[in-house]
């Protein structure tokens, strides 16, 4: 059970929902659960090989999953997963 924070640009694929509770015990499971719940989100999160796209970073707590166990990073009930996409407005 972790909370995923959805950034504004991707909220159009989550019915404008800002946070989603998931049951997965790893980042991979949590994100896949999110993508199953909101199928339109999937193509924006993953490339064709299933890898998280390079303009999106995933953080568990304050840390990038690339510096943790990547998609296998464990999450628990109180974990906050942040999806941070590149934005360019100025």
């Amino acid at each position, binding site marked *: 059970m972790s909370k995923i*924070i959805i*950034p*504004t*640009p991707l909220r159009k694929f989550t019915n404008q929902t*800002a946070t989603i509770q998931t049951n997965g015990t790893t980042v991979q499971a949590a994100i896949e659960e999110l993508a199953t719940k909101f199928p339109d989100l999937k193509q*924006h999160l993953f490339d064709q090989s299933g890898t998280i*796209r*390079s*303009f999106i*970073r995933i*953080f568990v707590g*304050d*840390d*990038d999953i*690339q*510096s943790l166990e990547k998609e296998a990073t464990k999450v628990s009930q109180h974990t906050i997963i*942040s999806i*941070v*996409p*590149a*934005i*360019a*407005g*100025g």
Partner: protein
Amino acid sequence: MSNTTFSKEELERYSRHLIIPEFNIAGQRKLKEARVLVVGSGGLGSPLLLYLTAAGVGHIGIVDFDVVDDSNLQRQVLFGVENVGKPKVEAAKQRLNGLNPHVDIKVFNTMLTSENALEIMKDYDLVADGTDNFPTRYLVNDACVLLGIPNVYGSIFRFDGQVSVFNYTDADGHLGPNYRDLFPEPPPPGLVPSCAEGGVIGVLPGIIGSLQANEVIKVLTGIGKTLSGRLFVFDALTFETRTLNISKNPDLQPITELIDYQQFCGISTTSNKPEATSVKEISVQELHQLKKTNTDFQLIDVREPYEYEIVQINGELIPLNTVIQEAGRISKDKKVVIHCRSGKRSADAIIALEKNFGFENLYNLKGGVLAYANEIDASLATY
């Protein structure tokens, strides 16, 4: 010891800095000796330029090719009604000279490109990125890396803001991550709209640009702990703030030269509009003629209801995401003109309707309601 001195007027102006123990006249001297380039004088550039000028950064360069537009004034607080239609850099220089005559302002009324970036940026100690598009952000980043200068980054979209300090070498000689370490590649065109397309809450660039200005001052004076190696993320809607740790990406290809950033970001100047050319089109003049001659045709508007409230040309409102369900409302027997704001969404609607229902009578209004307002009816608002 520096030879930089201050006049009586300057000492009085900066007195609130000078009495901060960890800032004092040494910090003010560093600001006065500094050379900062602000790329983009829009939403982020406005607070950046105002605060850096007020604070007494000695030499400020401004790069922008745009002119002031009415739609800028909701957030670009550097400008006023009297500046509309004028080059932004000229209006900015005039305002900033009035704010602080002790600051040397140099303007570049040009687009930053791979050809001119290094030449413009080489004379500066630091760049503050207030641009509004991915190609220029990668260009600014790569040029900063090549020149070995820090890039104080800020970015906004609707209610989201981000701030960081890239390519910063700290007092121990440790070089922090750059923009490509965080985002190796940009999103495909169209996924993340610009502020012009997606909107932005007017106060947000004021908040984010002010945070950037604070980071610029910290980098220049060496006080405090900069955002190097960290990304500050702000959601103005929920007031969630996070400061996330970012690090160098060991797999990142070294940056050795400036490239074609339009191409890198998937923005081809010749082949990026297949939808626009694969559907039948009608000009705003032709639409105007249809209306004037009372021709029997149907006009469909596929924008959102909140856009319809800004401006409309008597089309039937069927938002793009409902167009398939509502296809029964669209005639197959007469000419149907479909429009949106500028022509992209209406082309998408036509492609979907032709594919799913075999329509052959649909025409996309070239340039959308914007073109109609600009070319046919000047009383209509543009947005």
